[in-house]
C-alpha cells in the first residue's frame, strides 16, 4: 500500500507521532549525552577531591611511619561505593599501606607514574602526590570503577524511555482527539461523493463543516451537483423531445414510403395493361396485315412495337424495384459460384464472343433471387458496355477483407467518368446516351437497394474508355455455411 493510499486519519496520526517521536528522541539524546559527559567530569573531579583529602590526611602517617594511621585513613574510603583499590606509596615508590585489606598484591601497581586523574580502560585511575608544606612525602593511588557512571546511564536510560513512552502516548491520545477536526469533514465529503456515484442519485448533497478549505470544497462540490442536476434534466427533456420528433419523422417517412411503393406498384400494373394491348395489337397487325401495308408502315409498326417493349421493360424494372422494397431478406447460405454460373447460362447467347473469367467465389449468406438479380444486372452491364471493344473481357471474382466478402465484376469496356460517380446508383440516372447503349437507368439502383438491404456496400471504380469494376460486399461466414 503506497504512502498516498493510507487513510488521511492514519497519515495525520503517523505524521504527528513521527514528528513528536523524532523531536523527543533528539532532545533526549542531547540531554543524555550532555549528562553523560558532565557526569564523567563530575565523577572525575569527585575522585580528585577524595584523593586530595586522603592524601592530606595521610601526610603525618607517612612522615612518622605510622602504618596503622595510614590504614585508618584509607579505611574511610569504605564510604565510597565505587573505589575498588587504593594504595599509599612512600618516596622510594614502596607500597606503604593499601586498601581494602583483602586486596591481593597484584591488584595494585608496583610503581606509580605521573600524577593526575584519568579514565583508563573501564576504570578511573587517580595518582595524587602526598605533599605537606611543600615537601613531597609520597604518592596516593586510587582506582575506582565506572559503576557510578553505568548506574547513572541506566537510570537516565530508564527515565528517557519512560518519558518517551508517556509522551508518545499523550501525543497519540491528543492527536487522535484533534485529527477528527480535519479528517471528519474530508471523510464525510468522500462518503457523499461515493454514495452519489454509486447510486447515481444527484439529489444528495454533502454536509458542510466549517469554513476552511474543506468547507469551500464542499460548497463547490454541492454547486457542481446542482449544475449536474439541472443539466441532467435539460438533457433528458431534450432527449425525449428528440425521440418524439424521430418517431414523428419515422412514421411520416414510413407512410411516405408505403404510399410510394403502393403508387409504384399500382402504376406499373396499370401501365402494363394498355401496353400489352399496344404490343399485342401491333404484332397482330404486323402478322396479319403486313402484305397489305407499305414498307414504311411496317417499319413504323416495328418502331411502335420496339418502343412499347422498351417501355414494358422499364415498367418491369420499376415493378421489380418496388417489389424489392416490400420483401423481407432471407438469410440462407449462398453458393456464389453456382449463382454466377446460372446467370452466365441465362445470358449465354449474348455472351458468346466475350472472354469471361470466373475466379474463386466465396460463399456467403443472403436472399438467393435478390443476389442473383444483382449478379445478372452487373454482368449484363459489363457485357453491354464492353461489347463494342475489339476483345471484350469480363472478370468475376471475390476476396476477403475485414470480415466481409467482396465480390467484383470487371470489364474492359467504355467505362464512365468518375466525376459523375454520385449519379451512378441513382434511379433513372444514365451516364451514357441511349443511342450508344440501351438501358433504363434502374439496374444499378436495384443492385444498390438489394445490397443495402443485405447490409452490404456497393461501389465502383472506372476510367473513361478503360473499363469499370463494380464491387459489392456481403458478410463472410464461410465457417457456418459448410
Amino acid at each position, binding site marked *: 500500500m503506497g504512502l498516498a493510499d493510507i487513510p488521511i486519519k492514519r497519515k495525520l496520526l503517523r505524521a504527528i507521532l513521527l514528528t513528536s517521536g523524532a523531536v523527543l528522541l533528539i532532545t533526549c539524546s542531547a540531554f543524555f549525552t550532555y549528562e553523560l559527559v558532565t557526569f564523567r567530569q563530575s565523577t572525575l573531579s569527585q575522585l580528585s577531591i577524595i584523593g586530595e583529602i586522603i592524601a592530606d590526611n595521610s601526610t*603525618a602517617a607517612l*612522615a612518622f611511619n605510622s602504618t596503622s594511621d595510614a590504614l585508618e585513613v584509607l579505611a574511610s574510603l569504605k564510604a565510597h561505593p565505587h573505589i575498588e583499590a587504593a594504595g599509599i606509596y612512600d618516596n622510594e615508590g614502596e607500597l606503604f599501606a593499601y586498601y581494602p585489606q583483602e586486596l591481593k598484591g597484584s591488584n595494585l601497581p608496583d610503581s606509580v607514574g605521573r600524577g593526575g586523574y584519568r579514565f583508563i580502560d573501564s576504570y578511573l585511575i587517580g595518582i595524587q602526590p602526598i605533599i605537606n608544606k611543600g615537601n613531597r612525602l609520597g604518592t596516593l593511588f586510587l582506582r575506582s570503577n565506572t559503576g557510578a557512571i553505568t548506574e547513572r546511564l541506566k537510570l537516565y536510560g530508564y527515565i528517557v524511555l519512560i518519558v518517551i513512552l508517556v509522551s508518545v502516548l499523550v501525543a497519540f491520545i491528543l492527536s487522535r482527539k484533534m485529527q477528527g477536526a480535519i479528517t471528519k469533514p474530508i471523510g464525510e465529503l468522500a462518503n457523499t461523493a461515493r454514495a452519489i456515484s454509486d447510486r447515481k442519485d444527484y439529489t444528495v448533497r454533502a454536509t458542510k463543516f466549517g469554513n476552511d478549505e474543506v468547507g469551500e470544497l464542499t460548497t463547490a462540490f454541492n454547486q457542481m451537483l446542482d449544475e449536474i442536476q439541472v443539466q441532467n434534466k435539460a438533457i433528458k427533456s431534450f432527449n425525449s423531445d428528440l425521440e418524439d420528433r424521430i418517431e414523428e419523422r419515422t412514421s411520416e417517412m414510413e407512410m411516405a414510403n408505403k404510399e410510394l411503393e403502393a403508387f409504384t406498384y399500382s402504376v406499373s400494373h396499370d401501365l402494363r395493361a394498355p401496353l400489352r394491348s399496344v404490343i399485342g395489337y401491333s404484332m397482330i397487325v404486323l402478322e396479319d396485315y403486313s402484305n397489305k401495308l407499305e414498307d414504311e408502315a411496317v417499319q413504323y409498326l416495328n418502331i411502335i412495337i420496339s418502343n412499347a417493349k422498351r417501355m414494358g421493360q422499364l415498367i418491369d424494372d420499376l415493378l421489380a424495384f418496388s417489389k424489392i422494397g416490400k420483401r423481407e431478406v432471407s438469410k440462407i447460405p449462398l453458393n456464389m459460384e453456382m449463382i454466377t454460373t446460372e446467370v452466365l447460362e441465362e445470358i449465354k447467347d449474348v455472351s458468346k464472343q466475350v472472354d469471361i473469367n470466373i475466379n474463386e467465389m466465396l460463399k456467403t449468406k443472403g436472399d438467393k433471387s435478390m443476389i442473383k438479380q444483382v449478379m445478372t444486372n452487373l454482368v449484363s452491364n459489363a457485357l453491354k458496355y464492353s461489347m463494342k471493344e475489339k476483345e471484350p473481357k469480363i472478370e468475376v471474382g471475390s476476396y476477403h477483407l475485414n470480415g466481409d466478402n467482396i465480390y467484383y465484376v470487371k470489364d474492359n469496356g467504355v467505362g464512365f467518368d468518375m466525376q459523375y460517380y454520385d449519379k451512378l446508383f441513382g434511379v433513372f440516372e444514365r451516364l451514357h446516351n441511349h443511342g450508344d447503349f440501351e438501358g433504363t437507368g434502374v439496374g444499378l439502383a436495384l443492385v444498390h437497394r438489394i445490397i443495402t438491404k443485405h447490409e452490404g456496400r456497393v461501389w465502383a471504380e472506372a476510367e473513361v474508355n478503360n473499363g469499370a469494376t463494380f464491387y459489392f460486399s456481403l458478410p463472410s461466414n464461410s465457417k457456418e455455411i459448410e
Partner: protein
Amino acid sequence: MYREVLPLLLASAFFCSAQNPISKEYQVKAAFLFNFTQFVEWPQNALLNDDTPLVVGVLGENPFGSYLEEIINNETVESHPLTIQYYSEVSAIENCHILFVGADKMEEMELMSDSFKSKNVLTVGDTDDFIYRGGVIRLFIEKGKIQLQINIKAAKASELKISSKLLRLAQIEKS
C-alpha cells in the same frame, strides 16, 4: 631527605656488620625532628619574618651523628630556612624552635621550663619520664616502631599549635 638517607642506610648496613642498632633509631628520630617542623606551628613572635630561620637544636651529647645535617641542611619550611645548633649548656640557648634534650640534661630542662615556654620551644626527648618532667613530645619504641607521646598542656603553655594529623598518631598526655 628520605631519598638520600635510605641508600646510605642500606650501604652502611651492608658494610658495617658491627652496626650499632641505636644509629638506625636515631636516623629515624632525626627524620622525625625534621618532620615535626612541618606539623607544628610556632606563634608569630617566634618566627618574626618570612625568612627568619627555624632552629633545630640538640642539647647535650649529639646522638644523631651527621644525620641531622644530612636531613635538615638546605631545607626550608614555609620559606623559613632550617638551621642546626648544638648546645652543651642550657644557658647557651638563645633562639631555638625544636630542642632535642639529651638524657643527661633533664634537670636543666626543668629549670628552664618557664623560659622555654616563653620562647615557644618544642622540647623533644626519649627518656621514660620526659613528659612528666615538662617535655612536649616523647619518642619511645613500641612493637619495633618509634611511637610518639605528646603533652598537649605543655604544648599549649608554649603557644605551640600541633597539627591534629600529628596528634592522631600519638598517645596524648593531658595532665
